[in-house]
């Protein structure tokens, strides 16, 4: 039995006049298209690695990737005798049908495109969206990937991201954080404020301007409550916040200013008779 390749290639596959050869051509074009898209997007990432912010770089790489794949698809479709002009005619009707059938997918897609171009969030930003807090790992066509502060991977559909309130903690250049510092009533609050300001001044990322503010906020039951407002670069505020408080406490204690324990002064109408004191024996 002889095996004739030409005859095999000319075997119809049962859909219109499409033969095995044309089907193979279609697969080959798509495969080559995907390969070219991958190589191109990898090279775009590599070339722009240090020239563009990660967000723009990823967006550009994705545009290149999907652009080439769509191009390959358009080139390959005639192999399946798919008339693109017919697609245009049927596009309106098909659009409505597909629209209804894949409403959520299209909604996610459109939301994803808006997210990419409006930039409420960028890759690497620290955000809180739909009760999920963490850093943005990727903004994909249909979903946004967030890595929580515990390192958990969370995928949120883009529609949900787009329609939710987004808190972007690093969108602005600087942000403020607050300390509440309690000192005893007998301590000198002005001295405590001076010491706290001195400590804040020594930290490189506690910003000079807007200047930090330390003041007596209120008089508590057993403490004078100072409040400190400190501005730091938005991407570094956490390290400043975790670094400074202990330093302030240590500096205050070195100067005899202490954090008070909860206490209550009780007055007895008839005075207080202490029983069971030293040298006295209860029987």
């Amino acid at each position, binding site marked *: 039995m002889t095996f004739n390749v030409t005859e095999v290639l000319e075997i119809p596959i049962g859909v219109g006049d499409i033969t095995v050869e044309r089907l193979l051509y279609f697969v080959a074009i798509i495969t080559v298209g995907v390969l070219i898209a991958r190589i191109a997007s990898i090279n775009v990432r590599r070339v722009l690695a*240090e*020239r563009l912010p990660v967000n723009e770089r990823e967006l550009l790489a994705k545009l290149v990737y999907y652009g080439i794949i769509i191009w390959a698809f358009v080139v390959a479709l005639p192999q399946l005798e798919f008339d693109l002009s017919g697609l245009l005619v049927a596009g309106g009707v098909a659009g409505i049908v597909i629209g209804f059938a894949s409403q959520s997918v299209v909604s996610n897609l459109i939301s994803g495109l808006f997210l990419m171009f409006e930039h409420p969030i960028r890759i690497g930003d620290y955000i809180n969206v739909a009760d999920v807090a963490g850093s943005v790992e990727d903004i994909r066509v249909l979903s946004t990937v967030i890595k929580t502060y515990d390192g958990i991977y969370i995928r949120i559909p883009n529609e949900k991201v787009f329609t939710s309130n987004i808190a972007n903690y690093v969108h*602005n*250049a*600087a*942000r*403020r954080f607050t300390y509440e510092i309690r000192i005893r009533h007998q301590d000198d609050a002005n001295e405590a404020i001076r010491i706290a300001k001195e400590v804040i*001044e*020594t930290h*490189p*990322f506690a*910003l*000079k*301007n*807007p200047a930090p503010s330390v003041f007596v906020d209120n008089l508590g039951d057993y403490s004078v409550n100072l409040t400190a407002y400190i*501005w730091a*670069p938005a*991407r*570094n505020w956490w390290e400043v916040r975790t670094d400074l408080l202990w330093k302030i406490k240590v500096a205050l204690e070195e100067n005899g200013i202490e954090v008070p324990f909860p206490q209550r002064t009780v007055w007895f109408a008839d005075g207080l008779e202490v029983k069971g004191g030293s040298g006295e024996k209860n029987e």
Partner: protein
Amino acid sequence: MFGRYRGNFRRECGDILVEAESVDGLLTYRRRCERQTFERILVSNTGEVIINPVEPVNLPKDITDFLQIEFSPMMIEPGATRTVYLKFPVEIGVFVESARDIEVLDVFAPSTQKYTLYGSPTNGIIARYYESAVCPEIPPVEPFHEGVMELSIQNICREWVEVSRVVFESTDMKIYYGDFVAATATMKILTKTMAETDFVDAPLRPGMVKSVELYATRKIPAIDRGYLMEWGFS
């Protein structure tokens, strides 16, 4: 301390020690400054170590490209041009260079750093902050701590303006060194709240050597276009 070194070397200036020595056949770079040490083994046959001042925006870590110098307020009349001298912080960069490539090995400084916000929290920028006196002549500076900046201020707007700070984009910065570290810059006041700043690629004194720039070695392309101060200068 600044210069090019090959193989073993040792430079000690005050609290700063920079050396490279062979230990058991391995060349080890070592730096000590402000009680902090840094060490790297260098595997190189032909490489050179370059030590020179670099753009002062890298410590304690790289968070911005901008440098803001604040000084005593000056009132400048319309059309006036004046050259003054300011001090700016110095950071020392150590590079390893071979015939084909140059790479940053270490950046350190014997002084402390402070950062500030220029502009509003929404639209402003984080900048390295430094306070300087305004000097009519080249002031004496502490070596390795401070450099001298020649700043030409030109007021081309039609009003008197008060100037007490200048902000630069450090990617444009050209630093030269000799007896001291120096840079030359310009500030063109456009309106009462806007000014253009830029660096001039020229030594302050003849014979000064141009520093290798961090941005050049990091291969980050930057267009030397200066910086537009949009949020005032007083």
